[in-house]
């Protein structure tokens, strides 16, 4: 009941009674180093390694292709891919594919967040709801969701609906499971505190549980975006006339490896951009999670 929890670190507040110019605890004196040196310590070294590796990889690929060790018909090469991408942008032929895929991805992923988060909150908060829904979520999670595509096409037709449904099916469980995990880790003491200040169940949900689970929800979204992109491609293999998945598989059939890579590069770029955005968002919305990192 009244046992002590872990001791808090030594108090760094000034011990006078009016903390006027007291510094926040993380304002430790820094060694005098130039801005450039500090940037190098923080980011520069790691960034150089990272970009060095990327350039070496692309260089090796391009070089092997030029030297004839790799057959460009099968392996393409960075310069051929860039050339192809540029020509597709120049003649505008790339946009219908990008738009079609983006549309499916946004609808499917958006739905999975809109359904998955409330469902995860409800399952995390109520034993009755969790016990009822868990067999379904576990079974769905364990099955390869791609296998539902034929059924979805039979039910929803070959238009956009079946594709959106597949994306939804692929990513919404991650949202449910992550949100539920987020709710499970909410500090019980914060809920008790809210109750003691007369918060009702709805206020506890919106003002304590939801903000506290946000890092988990965003982590779920980052995983969900990966699944979304996979599902978009898979859905567009069948019965599609445009989209990046269609572009990739059509090009593959024609041995146009450069165009296959164009599709892959665009998808990868979209994945990286969305992931970085969510990381940034998480830092903005949950700054207390990054105290050590800063």
């Amino acid at each position, binding site marked *: *009941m*009244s*046992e*002590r*929890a872990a*001791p*808090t*670190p*030594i*108090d*760094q*507040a000034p*011990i006078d*009674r*009016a*903390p*006027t110019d*007291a510094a*926040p*605890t*993380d304002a430790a004196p820094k060694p005098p180093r130039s801005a450039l040196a500090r940037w190098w310590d923080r980011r520069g070294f790691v960034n150089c390694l990272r970009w060095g590796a990327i350039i070496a990889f692309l260089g090796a690929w391009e070089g092997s292709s030029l030297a004839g060790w790799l057959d460009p018909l099968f392996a393409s090469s960075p310069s051929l891919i860039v050339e192809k991408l540029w020509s597709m942008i120049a003649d505008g032929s790339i946009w219908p594919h990008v738009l079609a895929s983006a549309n499916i991805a946004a609808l499917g992923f958006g739905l999975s967040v809109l359904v998955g988060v409330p469902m995860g909150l409800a399952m995390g908060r109520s034993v009755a709801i969790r016990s009822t829904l868990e067999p379904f979520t576990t079974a769905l999670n364990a099955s390869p969701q791609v296998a539902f595509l034929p059924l979805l096409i039979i039910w929803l037709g070959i238009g956009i609906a079946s594709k959106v449904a597949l994306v939804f099916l692929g990513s919404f469980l991650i949202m449910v499971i992550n949100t539920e995990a987020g709710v499970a880790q909410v*500090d019980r*003491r*914060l809920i*008790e*505190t*809210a*109750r*003691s*200040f*007369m*918060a*009702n169940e709805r*206020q506890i949900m919106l*003002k*304590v549980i939801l*903000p*506290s689970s*946000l890092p988990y929800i965003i982590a779920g979204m980052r995983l969900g975006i990966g699944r979304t992109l996979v599902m978009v491609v898979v859905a567009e293999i069948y019965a599609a006339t445009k989209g990046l998945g269609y572009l990739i598989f059509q090009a593959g059939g024609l041995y146009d490896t450069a165009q296959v890579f164009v599709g892959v590069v665009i998808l990868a770029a979209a994945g990286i951009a969305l992931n970085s955005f969510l990381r940034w968002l998480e830092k903005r*919305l*949950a*700054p*207390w999670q990054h*105290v050590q990192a800063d």
Partner: protein
Amino acid sequence: MIEVRGISHGYLAADGLSQFQALKDVSLTIENGTFVSFLGPSGCGKTTLLRIINGLIKPTQGEIRIEGARVDGPKPDRAMVFQEFNLLPWRTARGNVEFPLEVQGVGKAERDRVVSRVLAQVSLEKFGNFYPHQLSGGMKQRVGLARALGVGPAYLLMDEPFGALDPQIREMMQLELMKLWDSDRKTVVFVTHSVDEAVFLSDRVIMFGTSPGRVVADLAIDLPRPRWTDDEAIKTSAKFIQYRNDIWRLLKHQLSSMPAI
């Protein structure tokens, strides 16, 4: 006036069958305007009783009456200060103090006014926009205290509020609490492990014993007030030392009768 009438409370053990008797038939009355401490070893039910008074826990038996009305849940006439501060990490100091007012439907302008007033009361007016992780332990607990004061409670319930602070900060916080208390003399129920803290702060120390949790002594502390102006004189006075030794003796007796320390 807080009336504790025949309160018994048991927790179900993990096996779902045996019960741990946290409190057995506790009755006491707390007069308005007094500073009362609940003192006792771990497991004596003092924190449980505080939560029952707050309305967070429904007792297995008995009832709490405040000004004659039966307690059946938290109300804004009682506000709690927690040992581990329990601040919302995504809210600034201001946001945390604002939280109960928001929950209770107070308008934005009134909230801002109240928050500024109580933050000034705990000398944190310059730290309103800091997040809890940017504040020291002592400052966090000032926020916790401001949050409770903002509700405008008639009864302040403090659950080992300084237990997580290091000793120097703890003493400073005791002085500040005394100073603050002298300005309005609210009824305070203060749970603590520390004999010195209980004697220094209180008008009355209620001692709890274990297995089952129950009241074993109820002592009036007759030391002069204000106590924050010359705390050293009070802490070195013969009376203070006498109170402390008497309570220590009772406490040692309690501890030695516990199955394991």
